[in-house]
Every structure is written in structure tokens, then in C-alpha cells.
């Protein structure tokens, strides 16, 4: 009998476990789980940008925020909430296209700073605008209603985020294993050779920037309905760093890396949060500890695991060994 490929079995196991989790987790753990899923959605996009297309974004939380704001605004103005969720990724992607046209002329550190600046500008604009509720933000966002289902319980949002993450993973996988994905990976190391193979480098860079922003916008939309309010303070610059740390720690350029990175960093930071909010801790302890955790993880990853935890080479070697073991006649 032919065995299903190893990756298929791993995917099946992970899918089952992550689907069972919301049913068994306690409430506080469930909210961590949902935030983890949302972070994973954004991180898959960041990993796509950084690992495949060679672009760095330190402003990904701005796209997340724009999705959240779009979803919140539409549903507060009487549109069906389902429309709000659908529009969230579109608004984020369009936002990315608009800022991407001038920004993507930059590379490396310059691009990183420019995306960071984009987020700062976005936050200060949203914080001043009456439409978006200023610094207080938008409150009283109705729960998401999809057909006959009204999503009240946290558990529902866990499953919604799960489905969104699965969609994002599927899209990324499909794109990366075909013509446009190869073109992206190609232009990351040689734009000149990619151009001369017929790849419209500028347009492709913009497309992947918008795609990653769309992922972030989708996560932001879910976040808005789940939490019920969005304020500029919900999307600090630290959040953008978090996504980059997750992508780097997990290993750039792999979907698995993004997922593992998001899971690990979320769990570590949340655990530290528990410690930081114990009695007797100063009020600034959580923020200080999370900065420490991000930088610590980043340094450890860069020094000791340059390919991230999910090291493709290492895994490939491992996989070949296993395959050899199974295919040798006994």
C-alpha cells in the first residue's frame, strides 16, 4: 500500500489537534489561542514577503489595523458584518498598493524604515480622525453574523480564525509552488535575471506586498469582531516587530516556520505576561518583558538558528533519511 506523503500526514495531525483545542481550552487560554491564530495569519504573509520576495516590512500592523478599522466602520454604519469581514483584506491590500508604489523603490533597511513610518503615520491619522473615533477608537462593534450564525462565543472566533488561517496557508502554498511563486523567489536573489526571464519585477513585488497586506487585513477584520472595539492603541509598532520576530524565529520562507514562530512567540510572550501581571510587579513590567522576549528570541534565532527553527535543509535531510528507511526492502 502506498503511504500518503509525510507532509500530508503531518498536516492532517496538526489540523485535527488545532481543531480539537478550542473545545478543550479554558477561556483565558482560548483567547491566547485566537490571538495566536491571528498572528499566524499575518506572519505567513510576512514570511512570504521576507523569505520569498526579499522585502522587509516593519509596518505590517498598519495593514492589520486598516482591516480592523474597515470591518469596524462598515458594520457600525449598518452594513452586514459579513461584508465588513470581506472588505477588510481588500482595504488592506489596496492600502498596500497605494503606499507600495513609492515605497517599493526602496530596499532593505530603507524599505523597513519606510514601512515603519507608514504605520506611525497611519496610527497618528487614525488617532486624530473623528470618523475612526480618535484615540478612543471604535466601540460597540456588533458580533459577526454569517448567514444564520451569530458568532458570540470565543470558540466560534477560534474556528473562524482557524478557517482563515487554513485559507491563507492554502493560498500561500499554491502560489509559492507555481509560476508566480517561483518568479518571486527568483527576483529575491537576482532581479536582473528574473527580469530577463520575463518577470515584471516591480509589479510582482507590489503584488506580494499587497497579498501579505491582505492577509494582515483579514486577520484584522476577525480581530475587530472578536474583541468588539478597535483603537489606535491596539496596534502598536511593537506588534509589527512581533510579526517579524515570529517569521525570523520560525524560519523565513516556509509556511511551517511562520506557524511555529507565531505559536512559540505567542506562548512565550503570554507566559511572561502572566508573570508580569502578578502582584507586586510594576505596571510597566508586561511591556518591558515582551520587548525583552522579542529581542531575546530574535538574537537567539539569528545567532544559533540562522535558518529558523524550521530549517528547510535540516528537515529535508531528515525526510530523506526517513524515506530511505521506509523504501529499503526488509
Amino acid at each position, binding site marked *: 500500500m502506498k503511504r500518503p506523503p509525510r507532509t500530508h500526514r503531518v498536516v492532517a495531525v496538526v489540523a485535527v489537534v488545532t481543531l480539537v483545542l478550542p473545545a478543550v481550552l479554558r477561556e483565558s487560554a482560548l483567547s491566547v489561542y485566537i490571538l495566536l491564530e491571528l498572528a499566524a495569519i499575518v506572519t505567513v504573509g510576512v514570511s512570504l514577503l521576507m523569505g520569498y520576495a526579499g522585502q522587509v516590512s516593519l509596518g505590517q500592523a498598519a495593514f492589520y489595523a486598516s482591516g480592523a478599522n474597515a470591518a469596524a466602520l462598515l458594520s457600525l454604519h449598518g452594513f452586514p458584518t459579513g461584508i465588513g469581514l470581506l472588505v477588510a483584506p481588500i482595504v488592506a491590500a489596496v492600502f498596500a498598493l497605494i503606499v507600495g508604489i513609492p515605497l517599493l523603490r526602496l530596499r532593505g533597511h530603507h524599505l523597513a524604515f519606510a514601512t515603519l513610518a507608514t504605520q506611525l503615520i497611519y496610527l497618528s491619522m487614525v488617532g486624530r480622525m473623528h470618523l475612526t473615533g480618535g484615540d478612543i477608537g471604535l466601540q460597540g462593534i456588533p458580533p459577526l453574523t454569517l448567514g444564520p450564525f451569530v458568532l458570540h462565543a470565543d470558540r466560534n472566533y477560534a474556528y473562524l480564525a482557524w478557517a482563515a488561517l487554513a485559507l491563507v496557508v492554502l493560498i500561500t502554498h499554491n502560489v509559492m509552488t507555481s509560476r508566480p511563486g517561483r518568479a518571486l523567489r527568483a527576483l529575491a536573489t*537576482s532581479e*536582473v*535575471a528574473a*527580469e*530577463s526571464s520575463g518577470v515584471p519585477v516591480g509589479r510582482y513585488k507590489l503584488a506580494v506586498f499587497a497579498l501579505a497586506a491582505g492577509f494582515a487585513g483579514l486577520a484584522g477584520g476577525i480581530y475587530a469582531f472578536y474583541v468588539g472595539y478597535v483603537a489606535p492603541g491596539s496596534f502598536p509598532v511593537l506588534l509589527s516587530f512581533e510579526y517579524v520576530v515570529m517569521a525570523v524565529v520560525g524560519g523565513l520562507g516556509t509556511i511551517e516556520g511562520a506557524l511555529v514562530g507565531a505559536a512559540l512567540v505567542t506562548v512565550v510572550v503570554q507566559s511572561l505576561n502572566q508573570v508580569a501581571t502578578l502582584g507586586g510587579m510594576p505596571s510597566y513590567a508586561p511591556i518591558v518583558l515582551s520587548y525583552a522576549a522579542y529581542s531575546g528570541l530574535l538574537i537567539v534565532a539569528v545567532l544559533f538558528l540562522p535558518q529558523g527553527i524550521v530549517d528547510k535543509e535540516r528537515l529535508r535531510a531528515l525526510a530523506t533519511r526517513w524515506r530511505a528507511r521506509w523504501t529499503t526492502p526488509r
Partner: protein
Amino acid sequence: MLRIEGLSRPFGGVYAVRNVSVDVADGELRGIIGPNGAGKSTLFNLISGHLRPTQGRITLRSERIEGLSAHERARRGIAIVFQGARIFRGMTVRENVMVGAHARTRHGFLDAALRTPLHKREEREIRQSTDAALERVGLADWADRYAEALPLGQQRTMQVARALCGEPALLLLDEPASGLRARERHELARLIEGLRGGGLTIMLIEHDVQFVSNLADRLTVLNLGEILAEGAPEEIRRNDDVITAYLGREPAP
């Protein structure tokens, strides 16, 4: 096939290519020779679109192309193998070559995400023509290695396969034989002959005059950015100007 008229491109006041006109017939193999810094690679970059000329016209199959970008020219059938190894690191040899098919295929992000019939059809075809191209250049055994793991000579050969995978109408080869061993050079020469036999129009830059002379229908000699001579290989090798400029010695009395 290709007509170049009065093409010029200076770098900081010094012309790398100056008032160059070349006509390459359909199916011709044109050799380009000239000393270091003569402007050969610059001429190729002007043809492939990586550089824009300040003056002059380039016509490919009766279409003016000097205003088009490199990827648009690739779609019109121009493929280039660069002098340096320009490979896609972190991708296997097969994947590198598959990128070459980009110019003649069209499924995009949406097709890929939705796995449309167009995507499936094109992917299958790309895979087949890639394997054929790898077979043709003799790299089939290396297909699953990372491109950066290849020796320099094979990286160059891989670029030839990448160019072929795009099924070009005009193939620009910038010193493809450099870095190859004698046996590999011989195989490359046979490959180029085969391609020409298949009707492909080729321009070949090469330092080894013997090597190009055996392959080319005509030679164009560049010196200091200008055309010094043009003609059949035998004529060129008897040309006194060429001997002086290119071989750097006085013609035999």
C-alpha cells in the same frame, strides 16, 4: 530578425557603445568579438533591455523595442545568458530553469491560488520543457541540487537551459564557454550548433576567436565601443585592423 541602427550608450561621457549598427538575419549565428571593455556586454544589455540607449533604434521582427523594458523584451522572445553567473539562490537547478518559462506562460497569482485549469496545463508543460532543457544541456542529474552548489561552469550551463526553457527567438550568449573545461566547451559548441540547426537566431560573445569562428556565420568586431569590422570568419581573421586592435600585434608582413 534583429536590426540595430546607430545605437549609442555612454557611461559618464565615455561611450561604451557608439553608433553601432548590426543586422542579424533569421537563423543566423552571429559572433561578437573584441578586446576587454570593447562594449560587447553593453551591446547585449542594450538589446535585452537592461540598459537603455541614448540614441539609436532596435527592431525585432519589424517591431521597435528600444523603449521596452527587459521583461517585455523577454516576452517577445529575447533571452540572455549573462557573462557572470546570475543564478537564483535557494532554488534548485530545476526551479531555476523553470523560471525561464515565465516569458511565454501567463498564469498569475489568482490562477495559482485557485489551481485553475490554465495553471495545471501550464505547470505540466513547464515541467516537461524544463526537463527537456536540462537533458539537452546535460544537467539532468543535477536537477534537484541547489543552484549555488553547482560549479561555476555548470551555473553558466544552467543559465543556457533557463534561456532555452523560454523558447526564445533570439538567444544572446555572453561568453558561455568561459570557466568550462575543454570537454565541456566541446559539448557546449555541439549544443550551440544543434540550436542553430533548429533555426534559432543566436548572438555569441566569445574571447576565443577559434571557438566562435568555427560556429559563427558572421563575426562582428567591436573595439572601443565601435564596430571595427564585420564579415565571414575567414575574412575577419585576415583583416589587418582586427589583428592590430584585437590581437594587439602588428599584422604579419
